């Protein structure tokens, strides 16, 4: 079945592009340490809000040259009372490929120093400029993406087992159990999800390590979504449990739990796959919204949402548009997930005409 899905995805023009885009993004995130010229925590305090570096391949005499860049000089303009950045043309900094830079651990294991590109003697290369602390936006995009693009999946892996078992038990036993369990799920759904999200995020105690915080946000995202999912599963279980093979399993004395786990829930697989792919984007969006408000992933860790936090200031969005790049990445990856989700639904649920 998975083969069929992949085949159809590859045949569909849009889905193919989406798959390639996502593959590229995840590839870049996996090798972020190597691709990024700087580490996540690198900051040059003298270089805050530097615009993107200009890369030249043709030198001042009009001849082709190795790619080089100039550093920026920060000046305070007395007349307009603003800080200006001008290129320091006195010294060229050649871009070096595969040479040694800041140390890191490749894939978190192997200590390495080589980066895809760095600059020589004291040069700085900021492909997408820097933020308020003089940190390279391009590097942080790669590291932040690791969090933004995985948090949704992790939340789903917490949420789906809960939803499946809850919905399974509720639908299978029926009667008063069903009524009580469903009323509870419905009341969770009756709280506007974003309100619940920010409240849960706000009661997280301060002073957690970034890993703890990350995991708790995963759990919070999962707590928001399980109820709706459990309700649909319950509906499916209601129709499955009256089938003959379930009756047969009952008559040979299989336990309730075994029937639910081994006979009923596997029947919902295709729905689960569709629901999962379709809900990844909404978790990416939730995380970014939460971090945008400052309730999600905290500094100095990066996520696409908390990088966009700087876009809350007018001066930033007007004069420093490079700070908006995380927003475009969120848009592109959510779009890609949506396209793939739609195509998968076409394969697994041919009756649906949502596309």
């Amino acid at each position, binding site marked *: 079945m998975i083969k069929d899905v992949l085949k159809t995805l590859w045949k569909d023009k849009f889905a193919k592009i989406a798959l390639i885009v996502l593959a590229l993004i995840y590839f870049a995130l996996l090798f972020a340490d190597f691709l990024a010229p700087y580490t996540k925590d690198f900051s040059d305090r003298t270089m805050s809000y530097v615009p993107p570096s200009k890369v030249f391949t043709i030198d001042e005499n009009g001849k082709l040259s190795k790619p080089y860049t100039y550093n920026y000089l920060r000046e305070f303009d007395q007349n307009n009372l603003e800080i200006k950045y001008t290129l320091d043309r006195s010294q060229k900094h050649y871009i070096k490929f595969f040479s040694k830079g800041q140390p890191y651990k490749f894939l978190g294991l192997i200590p390495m120093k080589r980066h895809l590109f760095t600059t020589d003697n004291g040069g700085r290369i900021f492909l997408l400029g820097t933020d308020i602390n003089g940190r390279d936006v391009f590097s942080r995009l790669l590291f932040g993406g690791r969090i933004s693009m995985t948090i949704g999946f992790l939340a789903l892996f917490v949420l789906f087992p809960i939803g499946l078992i809850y919905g399974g038990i509720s639908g299978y036993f029926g009667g008063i159990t069903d009524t009580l369990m469903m009323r509870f799920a419905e*009341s969770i*759904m009756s709280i506007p999800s974003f309100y619940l999200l920010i409240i*849960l995020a706000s009661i997280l105690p301060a002073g957690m390590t970034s890993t703890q915080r990350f995991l708790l946000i995963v759990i919070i995202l999962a707590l928001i979504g399980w109820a709706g999912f459990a309700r649909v599963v319950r509906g499916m279980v209601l129709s499955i449990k009256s089938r003959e093979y379930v009756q047969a399993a009952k008559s040979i004395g299989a336990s309730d739990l075994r029937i639910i786990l081994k006979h009923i829930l596997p029947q919902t697989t295709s729905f689960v796959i569709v629901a999962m792919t379709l809900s990844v*984007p909404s978790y990416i969006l939730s995380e970014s919204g939460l971090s945008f408000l400052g309730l999600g992933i905290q500094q100095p860790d990066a996520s696409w949402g908390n990088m966009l936090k700087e876009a809350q200031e007018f001066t930033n969005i*007007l004069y420093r548009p490079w700070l908006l790049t995380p927003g475009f990445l969120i848009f592109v990856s959510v779009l890609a997930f949506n396209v793939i989700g739609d195509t998968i639904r076409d394969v697994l649920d041919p009756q649906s005409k949502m596309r």
Partner: protein
Amino acid sequence: METLKYIFKRILQTIPLLIVVSLISFFIIRLSPVDPLAELKLNPSVSPITVQKEKERLGLDKPIIVQYGMWAKSFVKGDLGVTSTGERVSQKLKERIPNTLLLTTIVILLTWLVGVPLGIIAAVNWKTPFDRVLTVLTSIGMAIPSFFFAVLLLIFAVKTGWFPIGGLTSPNFAQMNLLAKIFDLAHHLVLPVFVLFTISLAGLQRQMRANMLDVLDSDYVKFARAKGLSEFSVVYKHALRNAVNPMITLLGFEFAGLLSGAALTEYVFQYPGLGRLILEAVMKSDINLVMASLMMGAIMLILGNLIADILLIITDPRIRSKA
């Protein structure tokens, strides 16, 4: 009569729901390690007597179940306590809820006015380039993070100067005559409405298109065609009625989604709505305000669903007979 009875039953069902919702929210908030009165105590303009009153009203020295009982009692009476700045919570909510309702109502009306026709047109022109283009456009609309879109529109507003930057009214709003007031409100509403409209249009259009395709495939529509009815009357007289019914159920969901989506949009546009209120309350850990706005959000959502259900009872006779 049957219909009324069913509606009455449906209204009664919301009461236990509200109780459970309030229990959940109460315990979530009490789980937090924050002292609910910390802000109030630190605020020099709030007198110790008010703090003491709040302490008694919330019953903070009593077990949590008793606390819940006291909270619920005063909530039903309409006493929601004071905010950390010493204002009455109920007053604050009274200012903010109409604004959020205004925003969401306009968005829902607009999405229905645009989304339903677009869904029908897409279904009638199924798999034509027009349909394809619409699908691509709606996918794009679904993928933009609302807050990011809002930020982009703010840049647009600042650069062109065509729209006010945030807020709901101009500073001189009080001096305007009625016509100017309405124009001023509309002017401020354009951008937030546009953000929420773009984001919620996609879902509605797709659902309408799917319903319409389902109905157009059914036997009675084939029969109507076979009878030689004009395409117009097949689509708009026979198919449309059945295709719209499921949309009414969606109305409740749409309202829920809008309440959540509006929070971020309100925040970016500095729009004085419930969403921004709860955000600010959460950030200041203003417990009374958080609890009250959470309940209000839930009540609005439950009411939205209730209205959708009642509309459905009125439009769809099959549900009445089931009840």
